[in-house]
């Protein structure tokens, strides 16, 4: 048995070395950790969140939660509109959503899938008060006390020591939190009592929802405020529901007398079914197509944005192409690819001779010329873009020069800007250094004597270049091309300024959806596809060149 080698302190050398190695690894990780954490927080999580947003679709389930649940039992293949219970749920959902001014948001979301829904939601949001006003007026006419916020509060609130309906409270808080995407955690000084929750279940829910809303978002004191009209509608629905009399008979708390006298007049109030009320607001609500759209987009996740991003759509018969006149994204992706390719090829054609010259001149002269390449590289992108905007204009320097030289007539100036030509010219100029620098670093390693050897063996100049020099420079072309291509497919600023409508890229569309059309899900889906393309290209780049070999400024 071999004798164990010991370190100076008597521990086995192997263990001691292992410990040192572990400590070294720990030290390295401790140095890296702060930055890793920083990048995770400021960059990776935002990107991940964007990817999540491209499939996320909680807006329907968050804005009209009760409707979505009620709609579960509806048969989408039939021609009938949903049951009254769905419309009732829709009334309470939309009421709070329109108080929070969020119903139009859902309208615009569903409008992406089926046009016309936006105006349906907008119109209906304004009419909801009228539906409920009938009930409010009837109750208040019968007894003034129903218009008194303090009375309502006393009736609904949990007195000291009495059991409270915590379940109802928590449920309403979650619903409201989902709807407004904020935490509704403020102490509002109100808890519904259990007894009233048994007697008037719907009223308690609606009142609690209202109380949470006014206390959290309007900073009001619940006891001082008059409840929304929807609370009166809920009171009517509760008193009108079968078995209301038995439930009320068991109730002995505050307001029992008032409730009993209200129960007496309920039958005198004209009962208007909710579906008829909604049909009055807009008969679009009776169309099964609208409900099919709502049901189709009720799940919390959707492939709809991705389908849209490649001009497909979900229909009753499965996934289909969008109508011809709505297909824009594939064209845009193809255009982005073709223009990036054109830019890459122009960069190769212009960059190759320059890199060759730089690599084969004496160091002093090459450094001088290198400055001409590095200065544009270091110059602000906006400066270069503004230069091209100025130069390429109809009345700009280039057109002036061409007219002066007699190449084009004064009344027939070239359209060099606000089209694909402008984008290609300006972006070739901007990205050219990214081609020249990798080409140069590869060419520097090719000994010029190989060319001379080829020639001395009888090759012509062309053969010597094409069979001997060029193959050795291909890695440089590969590196430069991938770099230029990747940079150009994600470009936004330059196409936006010199591209007009015909010379824009997919990135401009993403920006449009973020800032103008507000279809963020679609923007995220388009971004996710672009990101996938770029990462695939980078993987190729890593294979060919190696990420570690990325160099800046020579």
């Amino acid at each position: 048995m071999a004798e164990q080698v010991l370190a100076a302190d008597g521990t086995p050398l192997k263990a001691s070395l292992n410990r040192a190695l572990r400590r070294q690894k720990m030290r390295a990780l401790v140095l890296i950790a702060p930055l890793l954490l920083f990048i995770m927080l400021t960059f990776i999580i935002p990107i991940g969140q964007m990817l999540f947003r491209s499939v996320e679709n909680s807006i329907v389930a968050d804005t009209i939660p009760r409707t979505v649940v009620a709609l579960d039992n509806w048969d989408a293949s039939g021609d009938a509109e949903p049951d009254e219970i769905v419309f009732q749920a829709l009334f309470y959902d939309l009421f709070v959503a329109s108080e929070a001014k969020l119903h139009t948001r859902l309208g615009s979301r569903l409008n992406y899938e089926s046009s016309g829904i936006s105006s349906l939601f907008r119109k209906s949001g304004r009419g909801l008060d009228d539906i409920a006003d009938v009930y409010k007026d009837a109750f208040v006419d019968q007894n003034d006390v129903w218009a008194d916020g303090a009375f309502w509060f006393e009736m609904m609130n949990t007195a000291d020591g009495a059991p409270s309906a915590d379940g109802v409270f928590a449920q309403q808080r979650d619903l409201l939190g989902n709807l407004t995407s904020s935490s509704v955690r403020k102490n509002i000084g109100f808890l519904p009592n259990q007894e009233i929750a048994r007697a008037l279940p719907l009223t308690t829910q609606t009142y609690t929802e209202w109380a949470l809303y006014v206390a959290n978002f309007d900073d009001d004191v619940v006891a001082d405020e008059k409840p929304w009209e929807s609370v009166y509608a809920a009171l009517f629905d509760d008193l009108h529901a079968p078995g209301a009399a038995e439930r009320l008979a068991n109730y002995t708390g505050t307001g029992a007398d008032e409730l009993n006298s209200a129960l007496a007049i309920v039958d005198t109030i004209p009962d208007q079914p909710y579906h008829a009320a909604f049909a009055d607001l807009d008969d679009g609500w009776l169309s099964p197509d609208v409900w099919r759209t709502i049901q189709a987009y009720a799940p919390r996740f959707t492939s709809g944005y991705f389908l849209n991003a490649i001009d497909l759509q979900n229909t009753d018969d499965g996934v289909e192409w969008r109508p011809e006149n709505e297909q824009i994204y594939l064209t845009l992706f193809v255009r982005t690819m073709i223009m990036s390719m054109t830019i890459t090829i122009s960069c190769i054609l212009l960059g190759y001779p320059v890199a060759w010259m730089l690599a084969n001149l004496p160091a002093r002269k090459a450094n001088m010329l290198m400055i001409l390449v590095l200065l544009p590289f270091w110059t602000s992108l906006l400066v270069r873009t503004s230069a091209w905007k100025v130069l390429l204009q109809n009345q700009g320097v280039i057109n002036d020069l061409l007219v002066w030289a007699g190449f084009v007539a004064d009344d027939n100036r070239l359209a060099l800007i606000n089209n694909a030509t402008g984008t290609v010219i300006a972006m070739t100029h901007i990205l050219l250094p990214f081609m020249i620098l990798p080409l140069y670093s590869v060419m520097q390693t090719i000994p010029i004597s190989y060319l001379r050897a080829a020639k001395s063996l009888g090759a012509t100049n062309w053969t010597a270049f094409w069979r001997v020099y060029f193959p050795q420079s291909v890695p440089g072309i590969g590196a430069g091309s991938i770099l230029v291509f990747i940079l150009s497919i994600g470009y936004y600023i330059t196409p936006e300024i010199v591209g007009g409508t015909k010379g824009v890229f997919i990135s401009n569309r993403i920006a449009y959806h973020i800032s103008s059309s507000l279809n963020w899900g679609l923007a995220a889906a388009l971004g996710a596809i672009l990101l996938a393309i770029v990462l695939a290209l980078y993987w190729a780049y890593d294979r060919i060149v190696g990420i570690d070999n990325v160099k800046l400024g020579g």
Partner: protein
Amino acid sequence: MSLPIYATTGQKIWYYSFRVIVGLILFFLIAPIIIIIPLSFNAENFFTFTPKMLALDPEGYSLKHYRDFFSNPDWIRPLQNSLIIAPFATIISVSLGTLAAIGLSQSHVPFRRGIMAILISPMIVPLIISATGMFFFYSQMGLWMEETFGISKSLSGYIKVILAHAALGIPFVIITVTATLVGFDQSLTRAAANMGATPTVTFFRVQMPLILPGVISGGLFAFITSFDEVVVVLFVGAAAQKTLPWQMFTGLREQISPTILAVATVLVGISILLLATVEMLRRRSERLRGMSPS
């Protein structure tokens, strides 16, 4: 690569025409940047040379666009914002980035490739995608900061833009500093430790002076990234954080004013300064590490 005396006429023609071609390409590279310099002194509000300018008449030139740049609040405010945001972003990227680069250059780093990929990802991901992701996340973060710390909307706006720009600048710091550390002789730190220096003293008195050129050029890259960045600030910032490139972008997209050429000229001057500094630092670093300047 000079022309041999026995070259044929054809070879001579090719030799000179090749030089002309290369000259034209270099002209294409540099001319758009150079040409805006005289144009920025135009006395008229035109974007082309007026007959007076071509005749070199002094009356055709003026400094009025520069005066506008330095007196118009539409330009002063963005300039100030840029000068506030870029230095802070640079400090964050350089301090965190240098530490991490030193960590990465140790001989045994677990998951090295994966960590490297994450750290340089802000450079790989197209700006428009970074901006989209940040747009969603940072707006929530801003609200959270305002609620939790009770800071003003404007301050949280600056913090958001600074953090976003710091993230974008980090890959450049990592790349330049790791490149400098490749040539760093690790036995120097061991020698210092051997002589009784604490790790902190070793870092500041031995390691730092040697890698300083790399750190500074990384910092310059980070600075220029922030100073020149427009897509992310457009999505993350509010009007109160409007930076110089943002103002230029708005100017170019909406009503283009000749002042933009004066701004551009000033920025070209800054890039020349930066280029000269980086080049000087690169040579100094190579000399310090005992390499011959290429």
